[in-house]
């Protein structure tokens, strides 16, 4: 009998513990909670940390207070899959009861979070660094704001620069998914219009490491290569291209010769020098605002990258816009956050790399920097700014009707072979 009672006692304790754990109590609310979603797992595990750093920098500038309230970041991590991004966003919104959500990191996550945002009209969603065109162009959400420009916008102006260097015929090598499609479209929008030709496109499946056969397909009569690969794929390609004795100049996408690639551990290959690229920021922008941004980053984060990466910058401007808007309405999030959202729409401040404002679709209209890889005095490589092209909107410098006709970037859109 005693054994029986003890059994029941133990089991009920365990049962109660489980029940309380599963019920989910509401935590006390004092500060203003803002959800912050980046990636700590998956392919962007290391760059994803920079996203948090960028947001924290923006908060530190305001001394942790915005709109008269103390701001508390609820940090969440995804792994670059849309499912996890939505799950974490849902946790932040429904469980942790955040009132503003900042994130996510990657393009497809952004589209999924935007779809979720439509089911939560009372919460405002601000982008982290996701750069897919479709997020704000196809079926946008009225409560999703993106203060940065997207992948296609980042390449506008590079086409003219390539032509000015004499690259009239180019061969494209790119990864086969959404973000590169946008990048290629941004480049080709003006490149093709001004007479350039992309003779062929080699779409390589994501995850390919061995580019030997792709390199074998490169025609002899082209002027330059247009390479839109990211991270380790870019390093693999460049190494293998050099090993094959290739010597054509290259034009890179926004993540092809960025910091992570230039900072790879190993011998620097001289063949990288002179590669042109473009993006919303560059390591060496020569303005006081940018220099201050870099100095602040270096001072605050001893364990960070040598210079703030793309993700730090993007999360920084999105967070800063959010905090500024909170200040403007003195923290008033009532009435469906209407005043706050009006303030967001009216955002117009000078960020580290240009003016920050948004268009009618709540997408950023920003500056694109054309860069070239240069050797610094200490032998390391960095991206030197060659030109800054301001005020690029999602129509990529084309008239709106023509852009609509082109549609969103894909494998075959746009096309200018002969």
């Amino acid at each position: 009998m005693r054994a029986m009672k003890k059994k029941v006692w133990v089991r009920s304790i365990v049962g109660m513990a489980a029940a309380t754990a599963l019920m989910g109590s509401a935590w006390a609310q004092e500060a203003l909670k803002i959800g912050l979603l980046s990636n700590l797992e998956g392919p962007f595990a290391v760059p994803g940390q920079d996203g948090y750093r960028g947001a924290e920098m923006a908060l530190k500038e305001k001394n942790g207070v915005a709109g008269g309230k103390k701001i508390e970041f609820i940090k969440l991590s995804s792994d670059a899959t849309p499912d996890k991004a939505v799950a974490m966003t849902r946790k932040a919104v429904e469980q942790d009861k955040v009132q503003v959500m900042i994130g996510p990191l990657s393009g497809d996550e952004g589209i999924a979070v935007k779809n979720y945002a439509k089911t939560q009209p009372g919460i405002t969603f601000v982008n982290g660094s996701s750069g897919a065109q479709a997020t704000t162009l196809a079926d946008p959400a009225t409560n999703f704001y993106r203060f940065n420009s997207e992948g296609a916008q980042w390449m506008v102006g590079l086409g003219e620069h390539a032509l000015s260097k004499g690259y009239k015929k180019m061969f494209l090598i790119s990864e086969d998914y959404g973000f590169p499609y946008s990048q290629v479209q941004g480049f080709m929008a003006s490149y093709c219009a001004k007479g350039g030709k992309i003779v062929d496109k080699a779409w390589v499946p994501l995850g390919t490491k061995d580019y030997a056969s792709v390199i074998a397909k490169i025609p002899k009569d082209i002027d330059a290569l247009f390479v839109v690969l990211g991270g380790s794929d870019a390093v693999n390609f460049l190494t293998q291209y050099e090993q094959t004795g290739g010597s054509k100049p290259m034009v890179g996408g926004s993540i092809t010769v960025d910091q992570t690639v230039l900072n790879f551990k190993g011998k620097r290959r001289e063949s990288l020098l002179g590669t042109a690229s473009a993006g919303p920021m560059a390591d060496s922008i020569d303005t006081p605002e940018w220099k201050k941004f870099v100095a602040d980053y270096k001072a605050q984060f001893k364990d960070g990258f040598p210079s703030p990466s793309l993700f730090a910058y993007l999360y920084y401007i999105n967070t800063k816009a959010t905090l500024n808007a909170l200040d403007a309405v003195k923290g008033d999030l009532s009435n469906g956050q209407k005043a706050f959202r009006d303030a967001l729409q009216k955002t117009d401040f000078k960020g580290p790399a240009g003016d920050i404002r948004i268009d009618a679709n709540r997408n950023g209209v920003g500056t694109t920097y054309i860069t070239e890889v240069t050797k610094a005095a200490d032998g390391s490589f960095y991206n030197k700014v060659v030109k800054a092209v301001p005020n690029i909107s999602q129509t990529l410098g084309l008239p709106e009707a023509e852009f609509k006709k082109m549609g969103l970037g894909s494998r075959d859109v746009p096309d200018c072979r002969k």
Partner: protein
Amino acid sequence: MNGTWRLTPKQIALWLLFGGPVVVFAAWAIPDNAPLFFKTLLNGLTLASLYFLVASGFTLVFGLMRNVNLAHGSLYLFGAYVGWFVGEHTGSWVLAVAAGFLSAAVVGLLMQLLVFRFMEGQDLRQTLVTIGLSIVFADLMLWTFGGEIYTFDPPAWIYGSTSLPVIEKFPTFRLFVLLAAMAIGVALWCFLAKTRVGMMIRAGVDDRGMLSASGVNVQLVFATTFAIGAGLAGLAGVVGGTALSISPGEDTRYLLASLVVVIVGGMGSVVGAAIGALLIGLAEQFGLAYAPTYSVVFTFVIMVVALAFKPRGLMGKAA
């Protein structure tokens, strides 16, 4: 090979079924763009060499100890990282290769002695443990080495390109990988066929119980085999890292490649690993050159087809 070598009608039919399209394809591709075809062929052979290096260790462990070591990719990556650091500090690429081999062999030995030895006969449990280990190792390596890309700096005489007939310039390092794989393959075959330990390993692959019954210290043989298999993975890590690069995620990639190679080639057979690697390497490169969209799926299609006809792999022992 025993007795007369005559092809049964079924074998002839299979050779025609699969060989036919290949011949037709070659007949079209060579006149169309001969340099591309031969470059792709050589690329496929060299990629196959790399896959062989990685998969040989896997098949050795699998064949003898029935242990599907899904942490094999982690050993590859670990050997590559250690090799890189050694290479950086000593400036010698050869030392890096040696370090890669030894470090992975040591880890493999530890795994066998500390963990797998106590799970004799529990195949499933061993596999689950290797899965858990691979997840833990992957995260530990990400933590320790960071997410940056590491590239190697081989000596100048194997870097750069060489001129070959028909194909103008071909990366020297890839030719080196081809030669190295052939050398290691021959060495492995000699080890298995000519030495005493090799004889024990082969006997163990055929019949473990008998091996133990004939008085051999089976645990010693197991430990040696695991160490060699793991060491090969580490060595392949340095070699592969030089040809391509190393970063987190490489472990899964090479694990999957080894899996497919071993499934196609047959369990426990080094020759099978070579054949499987050839098929997969060629398929991947030709797919990438001529039909890039589905090149990755080709390798798995080959695996499925091979399994459909020969469930134990092309060189696997019959059930």
